[in-house]
């Protein structure tokens, strides 16, 4: 398969993830959609690294994986904290920080 198939698939996955973030309100699902977008970015990075024949893109994807894991841990900790305070788990109702 040529590389452009992978790139188009990655763009499609990224668009699906972005659509999910626009559509859904539960913070858990929004974090899941963020995962989708990060994974689409990883797929594009690896496809381009294959295209160039250089492994440094794969190292970049590995670092992205680490950052995604950190983001998940902190995000889920926030969700647990929100749930413990019995605030609504809905990003449209948690809008006090909006100016």
């Amino acid at each position: 398969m040529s590389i452009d198939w992978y790139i188009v698939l990655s763009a499609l996955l990224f668009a699906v993830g972005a659509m999910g973030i626009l559509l859904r309100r539960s913070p858990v699902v929004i974090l899941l959609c963020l995962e989708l977008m990060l994974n689409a970015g990883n797929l594009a990075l690896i496809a381009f690294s294959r295209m160039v024949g250089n492994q440094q893109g794969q190292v970049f994807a590995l670092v992205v994986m680490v950052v995604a894991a950190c983001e998940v841990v902190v995000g889920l900790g926030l969700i647990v904290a929100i749930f413990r305070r019995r605030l609504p788990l809905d990003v449209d109702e948690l809008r006090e920080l909006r100016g």
Partner: protein
Amino acid sequence: VEAVLFFVAALGALGGAIGVVAMRNPFYGVLALVVHLFSLAVLFLLLTAAFLAAAQVVVYAGAVVVLYVFVAAYVGGQTESAWEPIPGQRFLAPLLGAALFVELSVAVLASSLRAVSTDGPDVAAGFGDPAALGNLLLEKFLIPFEASSVLLMLAAVGAVILASRRGVAEEASAPPVSRAEHGPAGDGGAGGPFERFAREERSASGDSPLTLNRRVASEEGPAAAPPTTTPS
């Protein structure tokens, strides 16, 4: 064979992604994410990134998804309200997603990158295996590697602090009136471990913090108010 494998994995990845977006229950969304991640691992293998495919399965399907499953089970199924802050949001969002897809595809495919429509150059047998990536990571990219380890440490500490019960207990004793009513036990730490545990259990069973404090205060009564008679 490669094309068949690609299309099967691509369909799996796409179906998993749509499942994540479309599932009402976050729990099923997490299960759809597992399908998506395994399909992506197959795609990584097709792109000769063996170590990343293994890391994808171990890190995501092993660790991250377990976290998601626990939190989704803990939070439970929340029904999303039908209220739309922006009118027409439900129809606008897929439209914007499609526009984003078209834009990204055009940006890549219509660029001057000629190599994008080839299979890529032939690579040696060791391309993307752990030894090659380890060499790169520990020689050329040593500083990002160490920085990411520091980041992981910070994230772990931050998550423990965020999700700990102490913040909730302090907030529950925050109203000054109730703290004056039931004396030093209101500090959240001075009431003895059993009483604190019981209070946390009660707060987990759905009372609001304010009524909870009043109830604790009324159960203790005025006899517990002097500091000398507090149970240790």
